[in-house]
């Protein structure tokens, strides 16, 4: 395995959790809901995924448990913001604080245990092609799922009626309601989808990225995923590009650190967060890029009249 190949493989590994969480949040935001609790849903996905995989020995059950953990948190968010009409920003923060606490409590007995690692699925023959084989055809299932999700969400959002309804609810919930669409039900579904994706992303961290449970192991990735959604201007394909660029920056930092050029490690570790800020500044300052795709109702509470 060559050096470049190894680096590309690690970049994919670093990017996948960002991509998974961000694609879910993108759909949620397209329906007009801002869920700042991605970090909390992710970390719950990680602990549930690890726990189930450790207990049963099956990483695949771990994946399912991770999804369930993320959806459980998302469901609480949906009840709060949709049924009880609470402030979405504050509720998202609450979700993150609760998720970090709850996962710590649940995961206390898992600390230091060896996990069940998710196997790579090597597609016969194709994966033996030099260089591109392992990169394209030797990944674990969640990497394939993350890629498939990018194409699937693009298709659903822009080519199907379901996607049209999601976008319409995010653009103008009063009009959607007047036409007879159940705004709250659509948003429940999108929030739950976002939760499932975040849970999946968390499970990836505790099953594939570092197959063990470490408290707060998401390390701000949920927040970076949120920034990526802004960076993508709510377009799934641009999101994928952003996630991989981001993973590349992250890995380059680690790589430079390993080479030891005398740069303090803390500086390199802060690189992903710095890059996030820079990316946000570049995109947010550009009004033409953001205006058209930004869901107009994002973050607004909707209470139907009866």
């Amino acid at each position, binding site marked *: 395995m060559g050096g470049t190949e190894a680096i590309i493989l690690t970049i994919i590994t670093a990017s996948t959790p960002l991509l998974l969480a961000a694609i879910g949040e993108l759909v949620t935001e397209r329906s007009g809901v801002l869920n*700042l609790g991605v970090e909390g849903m992710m970390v719950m996905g990680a602990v549930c995924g690890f726990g189930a995989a450790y207990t049963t020995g099956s990483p695949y059950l771990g994946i399912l448990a991770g999804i369930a953990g993320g959806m459980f948190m998302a469901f*609480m968010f949906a009840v*709060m913001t949709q*049924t*009880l*009409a*609470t*402030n979405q*920003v*504050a*509720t998202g*923060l*609450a979700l993150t*604080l*609760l*998720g*970090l*606490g*709850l996962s*710590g*409590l649940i995961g*206390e007995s898992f600390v230091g245990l060896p996990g069940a690692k998710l196997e790579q699925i090597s597609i016969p023959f194709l994966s033996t092609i030099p260089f591109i084989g392992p990169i394209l055809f030797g990944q674990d299932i969640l990497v394939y799922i993350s890629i498939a999700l990018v194409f699937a969400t693009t298709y659903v959002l822009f080519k199907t009626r379901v996607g049209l309804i999601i976008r319409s609810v995010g653009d103008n919930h009063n009009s959607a309601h007047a036409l007879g669409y159940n705004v709250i039900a659509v948003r429940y579904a999108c929030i739950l989808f976002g939760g499932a994706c975040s849970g999946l992303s968390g499970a990836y961290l505790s099953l594939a990225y570092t197959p063990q449970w470490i408290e707060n192991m998401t*390390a*701000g990735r949920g*927040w*970076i995923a*949120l*920034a990526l959604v*802004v960076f993508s201007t709510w377009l799934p394909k641009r999101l994928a590009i952003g996630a991989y660029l981001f993973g590349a920056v992250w890995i380059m930092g680690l790589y430079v650190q390993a080479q030891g050029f005398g740069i*303090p490690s*803390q*500086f390199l*570790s*802060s690189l992903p*967060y*710095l890059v*996030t*800020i820079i990316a*946000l*500044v570049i995109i*947010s*300052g550009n*009004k033409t890029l953001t205006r058209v795709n930004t869901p107009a109702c994002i973050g607004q509470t909707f*209470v139907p009249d*009866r």
Partner: protein
Amino acid sequence: MKLVLDKRSEHSELMTLMSPVLAIVLTVITGAIIFAVQGLNPFSALFVYFVEPLTSLWSIEEVLVKAAPLILIGAGLSVCYMANVWNIGAEGQLTMGALAGSFVPIVFSSWQSPLTLVVMLIMGALGGAAFAAIPAFLKNRFNANEILTSLMLVYIAQLILDWVVRGPWRDPKGFNFPQSISFEGWQLMPTLGEGRVHIGIILAVIAVVILTILMSRTLKGFEILVIGNAPRAGRFAGFSRKKIVWFTLLLSGGLAGLAGIGEVAGPSGQLQTAISPGYGFTAIIVAFLGRLNPIGVLFAGVMLAITYIGGEAAQIDLGVSDKTAQVFQGVLLFFILACDTLILYRIKLLASKIKPQQHVAAE
């Protein structure tokens, strides 16, 4: 059955007062259930958690030590959130305040004068404010979301602190531990009495008084209220949203910085890699539990401080995980937000009599 919301024509005064109480009651009930699930007697566990911290002088003092930073930060955040400016990076501003304030005792370690502490406190506040100026600038200039930028800066601040205490400011006689030299004399917050309570709690009360006057009596407070409630009306009134973004972020950042130097020059007595058990985040809960009202924040800060002390006590006495306190805090914030719905809405349960007839049309 279906739950529906009926909008009230005005906000309910009763619910404004009752909602935090209701939230605390619900959290206590949830806590009892969590303890029962863990096989503990819920009543004695709750007693250890919420009552015992108030039964001895020592633990009351500890509550005040922890309440001081929570109140300082929470009061600043409440003004910020009132203006609809979402600073969630107080933890980072606290860290930078601690760093900036430590400059004098570490670099000029022999300077001992009452002024030393004053300079430290001022530099702490300035450090926090300067760090909060970054999201303010990015929001006003580039329209960058302050939630995300302020949070990213938390990680960066912690890494800077980590570098400083392992590198340039490490105590040369500290056996390579990642910590600075210990502060002495006027480099430390004077204590009140014999215990660990220091003047930080007095600073917190002063901050609450000033912010109460600001929000209820001054035109600036009115501007904050208007911009937060209806930005368009704020522009019509001739108020500048950008100025309010600057003002609230600098204010909350400064108070967080003050809390940071208060920790370093107070209970800690030196710079370490970890100077706060997440005060900057817990203060978000304090702000909401206090109804974004500085006086409310005073009570809320004490309440949250009790959960810290109760959590430690429960860990020692009952073997309960120290994570339980964090779960309590998260649950509490959830319940506060849910109960706040009652201020603007009436909640009704409808029997679903309409449902069975859906899509009935003429045959």
